[in-house]
């Protein structure tokens, strides 16, 4: 059946600001959905309050509403736009819950809006644990034994029935499993039950038999209106049951199931999807399987596109959101071509000939006192995905992608912890589990011992043990004697040149990764690039989506076009999230419009920039020097763009300069110079631009002396960090002493900076683009919170709401002079503090920022694209620079404090927010302005 003709205008609900459990994967799915519907000629109406999304870009939909995600906004939009249908499955649980609330009110029916992509009854069933349980029972799918409790008393009775602790608590209707977890002992039981009841909007928790340690699996399904079902990808969790799948290391496809066991999963998944209504769309099913038996229990089913769907899409190449959208508007799977091959059918189950590993990224360092143990409640803020031709290669690459300073799974010069620490970190699940498993093997532990403690399937352990044995073999050798075969085997197992250099240094002289690189290139050992094609090469595929491996055949043909390589921003984390991916996507578009072939390198599966049809060529690879250089040497582009990928990309700048590779835009030396406080201050002094007094220290004596000189309160922070990491305000001497100690512990190699803290100053954040002559100010954002609260955590208002004309004039003049004198080509962000009408410079960042997408949405100007085009040689006079902003736009940060109940809500110089929304305001009576204004000093910490 072709597309539905009874509908012509479709409302898509987005997922709003990034929070833990709901990140930029929904920009990926929403963007695919918008494009998919537009391709079919439907009118698309979109609501999403997240300005940093590609889906809210003007080209994505016919009408875009950057409004708060509330039933009120949706009602207003429906009244105005009169859509025929709503697609609520692309915006995570937020969108589904909103659609459900309106369904219960009878709103959709009243307004003649059809729900497509899901049945609302299905949502009710899957969200109500008891209904779901009853349904599973009726179709013969086994469940953990469990019952719902509405009170602490209920909960106590149920635990008795289940035979005591441990048990699992799952509050009903919460996002990302908020408030859930395993209860091991009596002492924590009451607290956790009560918290679960409180967090559940219906005050209900499920008390469940613990299947801690069972093997965990996820299947991604698609179904069409004819009831054809395909499984796009089976995913196996390396972390067994007990850790939220969003916090687990996961592997695709499954590695440890026989076909008979896998088919039990597949049959059950299809049966489950068919049992929750007959809608056409996507769905995710989670299972646990008892090791050593075929006993399978169903954990949950999500009738929507999920974080795992994004992962499955990137893992297989199969665009789940795009196809799910086509199915929602009436197509059947057999009518659609496989978008990757174009020659085969979309109605099939991808076969992959590589291994995919996902490792979640955490940000516990931002939340002192947080409980780092992984539980059934998600705590990760992002993730990386890697592709290899075997598990060791994929695992090493994933560690290279993580941005935690490692060059693979160990063997990179960091000390191995002691036996006791390793054991502690293995007994309970923590984020670095695979690394600790490696450490345990290094200490001589056996597969059986580790399996016994961790319940991780022995196959994964055997693979890690094999990696350690390769390490051990290499340690005894030297660069002069190592054979080509041995080196090749190391490279095939994903070891980086840094790791190999470190291992080979053990026997003698200190080696640098460049020594290993030189040697292996002499031996002819360089990676090839293989295609992700959904079909294990059975059919030819045109989609230019590649990964590297050490093999014989290279599939990535280099064109003779002029090219530019754009480095992505890696895993989402606090301080560097979707905002940078937004700029990456615009960099690709800008480069293409300027006639370049755009080559994207990134390793974050949640992003739009890694979608198969965004860049001319996509390399799904770690944004890690060796990997990036390998790609560069293969493609030989004119140069690279580093300024859109945050610190991840920028920190490679020095290496590019050393390698003599062109960096587009502002010269890298200038970017580096802006980070060097001493040089930059001299520069400001020369321009006669004021800045807070400061000093650079290496020890506490220096620090105290500087503080005495500039006067308390002072701001202390390590140099070269992101998102204000480790930054504190000290009001007196002993406090400063404590902070210094802490910095010396966490950043032993960095200098640290002591700045005079401008108490009660107003902070102003200015994004701009400079082309050598003209300065384009994208926006002057005045923060509501005082200087001292990290700009990412501040409520920012554009244009300024209370700055005097003189101050604004001064800021504009400073911005121009800094841009001109620094030799900026492209982006320049400057942060100012205004106190008593005097303007101080806090810092300058010659790159895109978190606020570029917000300003682009506020002004309706493609700020990111303008900046990148200027970097590539365009002049500002070529652009229409008129702002369409009427009145004010506010950037409202969102915090993850609900996920970390043990952490105090306080704001300071270290960023803690995960995302933001945009709000357009007409006057200062608006509560979106009034509220933060009232509380502006409340959460300021030291």
């Amino acid at each position, binding site marked *: 059946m072709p597309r539905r003709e009874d509908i012509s205008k479709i409302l898509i609900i987005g997922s709003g600001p990034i929070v833990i459990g709901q990140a930029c994967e929904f920009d990926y799915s929403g963007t695919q959905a918008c494009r998919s519907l537009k391709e079919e000629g439907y009118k698309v109406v979109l609501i999403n309050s997240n300005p940093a999304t590609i889906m809210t870009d003007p080209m994505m939909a016919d009408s875009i509403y950057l409004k708060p995600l509330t039933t009120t906004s949706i009602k207003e939009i429906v009244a105005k736009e009169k859509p025929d249908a709503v697609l609520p499955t692309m915006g995570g649980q937020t969108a589904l819950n909103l659609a459900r609330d309106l369904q219960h009110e009878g709103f959709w029916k009243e307004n003649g809006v059809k729900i497509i992509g899901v049945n609302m009854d299905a949502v009710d069933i899957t969200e109500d644990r008891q209904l779901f349980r009853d349904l599973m029972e009726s179709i013969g799918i086994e469940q953990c034994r469990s019952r719902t409790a509405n009170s602490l008393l209920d909960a106590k009775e149920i635990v008795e029935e289940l035979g005591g602790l441990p048990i699992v608590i799952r509050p009903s209707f919460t996002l990302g499993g908020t408030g859930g977890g395993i209860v091991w002992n009596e002492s924590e039981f009451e607290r956790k039950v009560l918290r679960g009841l409180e967090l559940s909007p219906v005050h209900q928790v499920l008390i469940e038999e613990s299947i801690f340690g069972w093997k965990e699996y996820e299947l991604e399904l698609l179904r069409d209106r004819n009831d054809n079902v395909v*499984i796009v990808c089976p995913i196996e969790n390396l972390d067994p049951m007990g850790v939220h799948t969003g916090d687990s290391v996961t592997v695709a496809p499954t590695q440890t199931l026989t076909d008979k066991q896998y088919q039990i999963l597949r049959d059950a998944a299809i049966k489950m999807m068919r049992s929750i209504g007959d809608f056409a769309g996507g769905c995710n099913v989670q299972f646990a399987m008892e090791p050593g038996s075929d006993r399978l229990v169903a954990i949950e089913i999500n009738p929507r596109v999920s974080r795992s769907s994004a992962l499955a899409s990137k893992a297989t190449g199969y665009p789940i959101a795009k196809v799910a959208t086509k199915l929602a508007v009436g197509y059947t799977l057999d009518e659609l071509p496989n978008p990757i091959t174009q020659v085969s*059918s979309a109605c099939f189950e991808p076969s992959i000939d590589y*291994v995919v590993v996902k490792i979640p990224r955490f940000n516990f360092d931002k939340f002192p006192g947080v409980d780092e143990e992984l539980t059934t409640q998600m705590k990760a803020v992002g993730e990386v995905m890697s592709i290899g031709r075997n598990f060791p290669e994929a695992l090493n690459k994933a560690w290279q992608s993580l941005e935690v300073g490692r060059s693979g799974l160990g063997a990179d010069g960091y000390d191995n912890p002691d036996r006791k620490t390793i054991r502690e970190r293995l007994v309970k699940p923590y984020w670095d589990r695979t690394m600790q498993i490696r450490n345990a093997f290094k200490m001589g532990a056996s597969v059986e011992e580790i399996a016994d403690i961790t319940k991780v399937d022995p196959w994964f352990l055997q693979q890690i043990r094999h990696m350690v044995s390769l390490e051990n073999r290499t340690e005894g050798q030297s660069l002069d004697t190592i054979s080509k075969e041995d080196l090749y085997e190391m490279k095939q197992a994903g070891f980086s040149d840094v790791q190999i250099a470190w291992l080979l240094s053990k026997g003698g002289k200190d080696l640098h990764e460049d020594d290993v690189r030189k040697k292996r290139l002499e031996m002819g050992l360089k990676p090839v690039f293989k295609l992700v094609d959904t079909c294990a090469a059975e059919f030819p595929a045109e989609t230019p989506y590649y990964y590297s491996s050490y093999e014989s055949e290279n599939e990535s043909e280099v064109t003779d076009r002029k090219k530019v390589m754009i480095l992505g921003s890696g895993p989402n984390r606090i301080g560097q999230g979707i905002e940078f991916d937004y700029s990456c996507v615009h960099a690709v578009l800008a480069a293409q419009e300027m006639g370049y072939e755009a080559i994207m390198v990134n390793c974050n599966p949640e992003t739009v920039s890694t979608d198969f049809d965004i860049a001319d060529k996509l390399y799904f690879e770690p944004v890690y020097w060796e990997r990036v250089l390998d790609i560069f040497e293969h493609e030989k582009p004119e140069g690279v763009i580093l300024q859109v990928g945050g610190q991840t990309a920028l920190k490679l700048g020095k290496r590019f300069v050393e390698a003599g590779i062109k960096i587009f835009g502002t010269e890298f030396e200038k970017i580096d110079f802006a980070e060097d406080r001493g040089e930059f201050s001299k520069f400001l002094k020369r321009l006669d631009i004021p800045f807070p007094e400061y000093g650079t220290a290496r020890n506490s004596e220096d620090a105290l002396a500087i503080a005495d000189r500039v006067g308390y309160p002072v701001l202390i922070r390590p140099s070269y960090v992101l998102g204000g990491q480790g930054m504190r305000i000290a009001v007196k001497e002993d406090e400063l002493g404590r902070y210094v100690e802490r910095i010396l512990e966490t950043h032993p190699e960095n200098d640290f900076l002591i700045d005079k803290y401008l108490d009660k100053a107003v902070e102003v954040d200015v994004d701009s683009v400079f082309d050598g002559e003209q300065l384009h100010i994208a926006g002057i954002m005045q923060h509501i919170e005082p200087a001292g609260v990290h700009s990412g955590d501040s409520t920012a208002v554009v244009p300024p709401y209370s700055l005097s004309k003189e101050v604004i004039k001064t800021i504009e003049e400073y911005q121009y002079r800094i841009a001109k004198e620094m030799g900026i080509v492209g982006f320049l962000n400057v942060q100012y503090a205004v106190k008593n009408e005097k303007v101080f410079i806090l810092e300058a960042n010659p790159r895109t920022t978190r606020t570029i997408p917000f300003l682009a949405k506020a002004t309706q100007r493609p700020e990111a694209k303008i900046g990148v085009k200027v970097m590539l040689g365009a002049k500002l006079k070529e652009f229409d620079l008129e702002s369409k902003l009427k009145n004010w736009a506010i950037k409202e940060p969102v915090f993850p404090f609900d996920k970390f109940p043990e952490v105090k809500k306080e704001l300071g110089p270290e960023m803690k927010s995960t995302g933001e929304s945009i709000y357009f305001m007409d006057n200062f009576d608006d509560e979106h302005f009034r509220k933060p204004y009232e509380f502006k000093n409340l959460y300021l910490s030291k």
Partner: protein
Amino acid sequence: MTPAKTSHKPAILALADGTVVRGRAVGMIGTTGGELCFNTSMTGYQEIFTDPSYYGQLMMMTYPHIGNYGTMNRDDEARKVMIAGMIVRSFSDDYSNPIADGSLQEYLERNKVVGISGVDTRMLVRRIRTKGVMNAVISSEITDEEELIEKARAWDSMEGLELATKVTRKEAQTVPSDGSYRVAVMDYGVKQNIINNFVKRGCTLRIFPAETPPEEVMEWKADGYFFSNGPGDPNASASYGLPVVEAAKKSGKPLFGICLGHQLMAMSEGIPIRKMFVGHRGANQPVKNTATGLVEISTQNHGFAVDEKQIDESKVEVTHINLNDNTIEGLRFRNFAGMSVQYHPEASPGPHDSSYLFDQFLEMVKEGRGEKASP
């Protein structure tokens, strides 16, 4: 701790087109050859290696890690390993499966299978995809590349090759069930899971060796006749296969064919069989049922197919087509009560979407016995 992988001897894979790749020996040390084909299933290696339809073929798995969960007796599709050799990217010496009976290495050694690991299987798949299937040789004994290429070139071509008699039972066998239905099974290399599917549905089976004369088969007075899957060129199995098909047709009882059986039934109606360029081998092939419009994800394993250009619509109705390349996957016969499919509804390995075909055949058997079909 020395990695087990490097303890393997070197091995060479040589293709008839002159391609030579080096890897490490797995399984038995020796030399072997056959048609090089690839399978895209991500699970079920043991079922594939024991599938009699692969007799005489070198099996290359596209999924890189093979051996992960060891081997289990319950996963055998025949009494022994049928493939002539195995090619993989990353062989797992260690395995993890508490209920396994042993490792794949032990299993291959016991079954005298020569294999090679550590080769760029994806490159080889792409080569076959563009050049068509070809013969190859694996050796962990011979190191002379030219000699191996020559050996590959001299290896018997699959075209015209008769292999079913190599894998069929030597003697007829009765397999009892709880039910009263009697199905005669022509064993050209029947998979265990086909037998299981019949028995599960209450069919008692009499399984006949491939070359059993028609009279002997008809003597058993079956309620239905089943023609199994099997290896080799179907044209080469015609001499003994077709007489039984003809006799079964005359009996008035229903016929059901899978894979080679399907091809024999089609040939009996004058439809020629052609060799395919690459073939279909995997567990993700979409097949559309033309009657219901529904799609089944199916297990496939065939290098020959009914020639879609020479279909006589007056004799057969095309019931199933492959969505990827529109080749014919299933037929219903107009001149007799018969249906056949090119693919494998018994799965093993693979999805269970098509198991309804066994139910359909059972309905035909019931009808043939004058029983009312189930509602």
